[in-house]
């Protein structure tokens, strides 16, 4: 039989060109990794397989080459890599972590990723997320799990200048999140905060 046909959670979603640009990322592999960061064996084994040290600080990420480790919790990370390498990397982790209390699961299909690009990406997210996205820590590499459009979601600030933010949502919610972004990122609803305001009437 032919190879399985891949169909992501946002298959058929056409990129949106509004106040910012919104597009779907389908080709990313993801591994949910749990373990004790104080366990030297766990740290060493993961570093050997991933080529990076897991971030220990909350809401940080570490990237090298194709692999990025996003902090989820004091004992949980989301490892991202090119999709083609996801299963291989997950197997590598499971093998290297044998006998070490940990859990590494390939969850490449569990989430959909929506990329927001352009000045105003944060303002679009602020229409759905009750967090202070204008705070100074939201800079390159910052990760935060949050509630977006009433959904469990996570953002990863890929770059703050130019503004690129990846929004992670669970696959079953992807279309809803997409429709939400389409509704709130229209050119007419652009939101300009603090700077760039025109002079108020008196």
């Amino acid at each position, binding site marked *: 039989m032919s190879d*399985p046909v891949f169909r992501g959670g946002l298959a058929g979603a056409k990129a949106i060109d509004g106040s910012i640009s919104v597009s779907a990322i389908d080709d990313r592999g993801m591994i949910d990794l749990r373990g004790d960061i104080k366990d030297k064996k766990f740290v060493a084994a993961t570093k050997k397989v991933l080529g990076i040290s897991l971030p220990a600080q909350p809401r940080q990420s570490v990237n090298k080459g194709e692999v990025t480790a996003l902090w989820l919790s004091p004992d949980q990370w989301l490892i991202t890599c090119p999709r083609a390498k996801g299963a291989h990397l997950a197997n590598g982790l499971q093998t290297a972590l044998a006998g070490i209390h940990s859990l590494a699961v390939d969850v*490449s299909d569990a989430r959909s990723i929506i990329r927001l690009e352009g000045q105003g990406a944060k303002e679009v997210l602020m229409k759905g997320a*009750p967090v202070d996205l204008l705070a100074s820590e939201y800079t390159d590499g910052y990760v935060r799990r949050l509630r977006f459009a009433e959904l469990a979601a996570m953002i990863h600030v890929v770059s703050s200048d130019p503004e690129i933010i990846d929004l992670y949502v669970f*696959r079953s919610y992807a279309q809803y999140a997409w429709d939400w972004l389409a509704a709130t990122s229209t050119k007419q609803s652009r939101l300009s905060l*603090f700077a760039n305001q025109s002079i108020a009437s008196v």
Partner: protein
Amino acid sequence: MTGKPYRLPDDSGAGRLLDRSKPLSFTFDGKKMTGYAGDTLASAVMANGRRVMGRSFKYHRPRGLITMGSEEPNALVGVGTGSRREPNLRATQVELFDGMTSVSQNRWPSLDFDVGIINNHMSRLFPSGFYYKTFMWPKTFWHKVYEPVIRNAAGLGVAPDGVDPDSYEQVHVHCDVLVVGGGVAGLAAAQAAAANGKRVMICDETPRLGGIADISNELIDGKSQLDWVREQAASLTAADNVHVMTRATVIGHYHHNYLMIFERLTDHNPALAAAGAPRHRLWKVRAGKVILASGASERTMTFANNDRPGVMLSSAARTLVERYGVAPGLMGLIFANNDDAYITALSLKRSGVGIARIVDVRENPQSEIITAAQDAGIETMFGHAVAGVETSAGGKQIDAVKIAPYVKGRGRVVNEITVPADFIAVSGGWNPVAHLWCHNGGKLQWDDTLACFKPKSHDDDIAIVGSANGTMDLAGCLKEGYAAGEKAGGKARLKKPRVVVRKQAPVEPMWFSPATGKYNEGNKHFIDLQNDVTAADLELAQREGYESVEHTKRYTTLGMATDQGKNSNVPGMGIIAEATGKAVPEVGTTTFRPPYTPFSFGAIAGTQRGKLFHVIRRTAVYDWHTSQTSVMEPVGDWRRPYCYPQGGESQQDAINREILNVRNNVGILDASTLGKIEIKGPDAGEFLNRMYTNMFAGLKTGKCRYGLMMNEMGFLMDDGVTAKLADDHYLMHTTSGGADRIAAWLEEWLQTEWYDLKVYVTPVTEQWSQFAIAGPNARKVLEKLGSDIDLSHEALPFMAMATGDIAGFPVRLFRISFSGELSFEVATPANYGQDLWDKILEAGKEFGIAPYGTEALHVLRAEKGFIVVGDETDGTVTPHDVGMSWAVSKKKPDYIGKRSLEQAFLTEPGRKQLVGLATTDPNEVLPDGAPAVESGKLTGHVTSSYWSPTLKRSIAMALVKNGSERMGEKISFPLADKVIEAEIVDPVFYDKEGARQNV
């Protein structure tokens, strides 16, 4: 008044907001009118010689505008047409645009002639509490007679037709300091707060900053207040750390400085809405500190027929002249108890509006501004009060004002004089706008000097400055503003402006001016204009024993209209105080609750409308399902296919066909919504032992076991099959609805109680598409697809699982069955789900495969007597109750719910147990939830009930008292139109030995 020249000429200096080069046309009650850019609807209507803008709620008396802004009780209008018609807007806030259609409210058939005015003449029939007193009897009259009549006569505007064409949104913003109110005090606070780089927001409900600076007469740094405001507004909007908002009302203050701001983006300019801009935006703001500079609102003084069109607040008259170039009338009388009204007098005089005189209740007030008014030739009359008005044209036109000597507490006077005038500008002093202060528990205290409630204390990090704080002088407003700003933003090196302090004569509170005549004989003293509550109503309520102000409010409806008593609360309490001989603070304070002003449902809904109304979860096969069936069933947030009708098939026929196809051939079900949780660690087995009622320790790798989960109270909360993937590694299945809850439940126990257990838990529901392939031909379908897994019964028996490859797809394969048939559940990563589904259907074609929906699934399981947690259980049902004592371990030392299950009340006889029901008439299907009644007592209820096409009869399950001991007995279920009889039977209706799934 029609046709008279109420628009003041350009060269009068009046009307600073008007752009007279831009005339606008609009309609009011169908009549074509013109105004200018800069007008409000109220000012434009007034300029067209129209003073009556609505009729009152109860008595349908003609009413004109009273105030200058959002506190307006009278001039309520509907604006727009069709689906864009919005009722109950305050005309004083509505910014005029070209082509506006507006209508007055509470009048029928027209504003000039209103049938409801009869209520005015019958007002002795409408005393306090008239609803309670009049419409109580006979009871049967309420629905058919009283309610429809009241609903027709009462009510405010007309709701829009059709779907709202506009869009709305919300936004969450954090700031260090939020300044509420853009007047002088607010601007000073924002400047100081922002000076050190703090993130500052300042907002004002009007279209512009400045508050009443433009209608004030004092100077700041030798400049007009307006010029000073212009400078501040420019520098604040230019600052990168300041966000300035206008047309933005802070409508609520909640815990920990959480506030909601209602911003109107397009109401003043429909072209923006037509282009697709959001109409309203609701801001949810978390502020480190809040500075309230919400100003003060002027209050009226009560005299006979003080509601007649033409009686307005002094500030409203001044605003009409100064901002909109509209004369409130030809000859005005000013009625005051404080100095502010003298600014109005001077303003009117300067603009060429006639002033009959100033009537001041104070005996001998002395101040600069009073002298200035006298010097300008304005006649003053001290120690007097307005006692009433003489009107014509059915109360729509004021002809003269009655004035009587006034001595506080002296009561009715007779020696009055009459002065011709056609409008009255009243100033009874100013009340701090402290609503937001009170929303989240701020306290008020009575101030005798100002005769108002002013802020006292607050638990939140919130400051209140300027007139909102009872500081009524300019110098004080600036000082408090800067001080609060510095406290919030850090010591700022700002050059503070200089203000020449002018001494004012103190205000003298005056609540009630007695009339020469009797109450209710053409002499109504209105307190609450919007709800038509009079001084007589309040006094009646006191006589009838409504001593508490809260009771009086509810009995008379004082302060309960859409303006929430902004104008009426303090005068109302003043009247009650006088009537009861108490001081105002003894009468009580009022509680202000959000919202500060009404706001739109659109803003509340925000983005969540239409397809975004509620979250919808979609499986990987969702698009295929919706292409095959329109019958989707909500299961939690998921949408699952209920059944797949073919051709002209009915839903019931489709369900029957799908069931029989599973029993006879093979069916496929999208079971992806089932919860899936990976559980791993050296203590994973022990952990499962504690979470489930039954044993998991002995489970072998590659095998599955059904588990029951109780809460700590011993009641069933979930169930599902757990597979052992490796020595220390399990995969738990939960119910579809329970997936998130159970994952959190496991985490909670691991983190808070059994943190010594070495176990990690990760939910993986979303990772997998999972399909049940069920029926005698199930194995043949998989064999045709090809697999590296040995699919034989010997290698992969019932309740076994394997990992491998099917048709090139990576899969987990489970021999589990919820239908009682030979069944495989196959899971593949979700992004391959649709393709695997397609390939299974293709391969299964020759074996008669057909998809089945959730209803077939439910019937199939009910035929087998399998429970559904949530159908057979309701949060008070134990494993013993549903006949699953076999799954309750006696050996395990501890598991969740174990101790509770042994509590006396859960073990005593007489509990309900799960049974099957066979109706005496096999064609009769019991309704879900039908009650069993025996000897007049409720002894059970139906938990699931279906037509079984397999058995060609109805089947049902029920919880019945002592049911397990009553096999073969008949019980009856009385319904609305008949009684259904059924025999208590074993809940397993089909294949009791379980042979069919074990092949």
